[in-house]
């Protein structure tokens, strides 16, 4: 069903070579030390990976969303942290500007972001607003030709490294979700500060922080979309982000399968490789089938997006399935590795910790089920 074009295959190769050269040698260390993979991020910028699906006019590579999806998959297969750094930047920060921005906003911000000169982050989540994203308490008060933003955001991927934030805030509390607006906020604006750095179970190389906004003056020209359109911007962005995370989960699932196959062939017990045991063969068969199914869901969602067709339901299905597959595969990979799977330094151990978040962020699996059910039962 999916024969990638030559360009898409070449982009896969570039992502794969990048991951092998830059991410692989430091993946364990990045996880162990929660170290930001600076050289990898710089290399991604140089290779044009930070703007894969955006047109040349805005500094992007002019490729499509499927190419981008494949790139995230290949990178995440080696280092899920690097995968999400890329995905949060491209899908959550660049995309809303690309889709909802005015020409001025696009020309002002996208070239730097698509080239990787500036890194982006998406600031929606608050302490009291996770799945219930509509309960925003960050406020944006109009004052002349700018808005004053006050509030704090939590669990922001790329928080301390980003230069450009997409921030959601209440411009009109009385309107509920229709009172939320979106803003492009630069780290350089006075009043923007990075708060707490979270210590996470997995994807430890990606930095997750609080973003504090204290009387931040944001020019009205930086409002993204109309007043009150913020929730729509957020939801539309998360639809696309869903495919990016699905690609990350797919990469993790593939890595879990690869590691399991390698171990099963090498590890000898009772005088033969454990791969000779039918029970283990059946596990591998199931894992391989699940990964393949996940791949089709993910690529299909990305293709629909490229074709300009509605893809919200498919994106949710892809994210739901790929994330649950990643988690299950990673657990199986640890099991297949036996005692060694529990030891730090074994890739399977890291995969299991990395996988869990894919079932949670950018819409929990429960939220995905809500979205899918809603479209089915309309």
């Amino acid at each position, binding site marked *: 069903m999916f024969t990638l074009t030559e360009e898409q295959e070449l982009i896969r190769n570039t992502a794969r070579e990048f991951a092998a050269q830059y991410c692989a040698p430091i993946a364990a260390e990045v996880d162990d030390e929660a170290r930001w993979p600076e050289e990898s991020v710089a290399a991604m910028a140089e290779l044009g990976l930070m703007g894969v699906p955006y047109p040349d006019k805005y500094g992007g590579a002019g490729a499509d969303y499927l190419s981008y999806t494949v790139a995230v998959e290949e990178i995440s297969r080696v280092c899920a942290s690097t995968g999400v750094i890329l995905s949060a930047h491209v899908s959550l920060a660049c995309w809303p500007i690309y889709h909802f921005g005015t020409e001025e906003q696009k020309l002002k911000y996208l070239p730097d972001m698509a080239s990787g000169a500036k890194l982006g982050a998406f600031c929606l989540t608050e302490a009291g607003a996770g799945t219930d994203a509509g309960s925003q308490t960050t406020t944006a008060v109009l004052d002349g030709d700018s808005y004053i933003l006050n509030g704090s955001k939590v669990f922001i991927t790329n928080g301390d490294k980003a230069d450009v934030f997409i921030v959601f805030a209440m411009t009109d509390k009385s309107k509920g979700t229709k009172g939320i607006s979106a803003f492009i906020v630069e780290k350089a604006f006075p009043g923007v500060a990075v708060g707490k750095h979270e210590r996470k179970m997995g994807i430890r190389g990606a930095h997750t922080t609080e973003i504090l906004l204290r009387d931040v003056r944001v020019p009205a020209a930086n409002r993204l979309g109309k007043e009150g359109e913020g929730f729509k911007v957020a939801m539309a962005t998360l639809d696309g982000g869903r495919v990016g995370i699905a690609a990350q989960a797919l990469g993790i699932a593939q890595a879990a399968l690869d590691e399991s196959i390698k171990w099963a062939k*090498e*590890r*000898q017990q009772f005088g033969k*490789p454990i791969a000779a045991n039918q029970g283990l063969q059946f596990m591998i068969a199931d894992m391989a089938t699940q990964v393949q199914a996940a791949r089709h869901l993910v690529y299909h969602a990305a293709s629909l997006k490229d074709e300009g067709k509605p893809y919200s339901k498919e994106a949710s299905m892809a994210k739901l399935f790929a994330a649950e597959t990643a988690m299950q595969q990673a657990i199986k990979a640890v099991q297949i590795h036996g005692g060694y799977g529990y030891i730090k330094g074994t890739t399977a151990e890291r995969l299991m910790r990395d996988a869990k978040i894919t079932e949670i962020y950018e819409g929990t699996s429960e939220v995905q089920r809500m979205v899918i059910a809603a479209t089915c039962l309309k």
Partner: protein
Amino acid sequence: MPGVIVFAEQHSTLLELTGEGRKLADWLGATLTAVTPESNHEAALDAMAHGADGAVVLRLPAGQPLETAAAELTELAADADLVLFGATLRAKGLAARVAARLGAPLAAEALSLRPQADGALEVDRMVYGGGGIATQLLRTRPMMATIPARTFPAPAAGPRTGEVRVIAVAADARVRVVAQRPRTQEGTDIAEAPAVVGVGRGMAKAEDLALAEALAGTMGGAVGCTRPVAEDLGWLPEDRYIGISGRKVAPRVYVAVGTSGQVQHVSGVRDAKVVVAINKDENAPIFKHADYGLVGDLYTALPALTAELKKLLG
């Protein structure tokens, strides 16, 4: 001239090819001529005492690379049945140019030559980084192949004598050798050592090489290594790297220590009489390429082995 021609830059290889060439010349009912650069004049004479009917030396003008001799060598080989070249790096280029002039196929780095009933030659060579063996049939004349050193045994000496003919090679003004920087031989040439200890990335640090050196010393041998140890880590000079694009060694004993056994490395010790492997990973591929294997930590096994051998060998 018709018959069998063998060419080699090195003395020992010329004799090896002369030995094999003699057998093939007898099979074809042809004469055998040994060819070598004039700087190797002694080898030309020696070839005639080891089975060659005649010998030729190529007089290269100063500052000319060996490949310039393609024209003259082509003339010599034009009517030949078979031409064998010792597969040194320079000679491979020379052989290819001669083959192109003659429109003849060239079997590169042949492992074996098997005469067929109809006068053709079946040839085996390694492909896929040492993972495969490809078989080819050479038939059209001249049949051409390059042969690595030590593929064939040195022949017995005999009383033959003859004249060494000199062929002057015309210079090619377009190419000039402007400098030579000889490789300084640090310590033993591992290709000559009766025993070689090959180390891989199982060694944690450069200082640990001392363990391998102690073992090699007990056996009267030398230390070699895999490519990463020489090229990436730089713990040993390049002439110690054993493998498909490095040195080939054929010692009585090769001890592989802390190397997983990648085909690219293992193909360099194909001709070792006995291969011994020490590795802590029981599933390392090296054990498939070894006669005797010990699963264990090299840091305990090496000193223990050295001590045992001291007792046995004195």
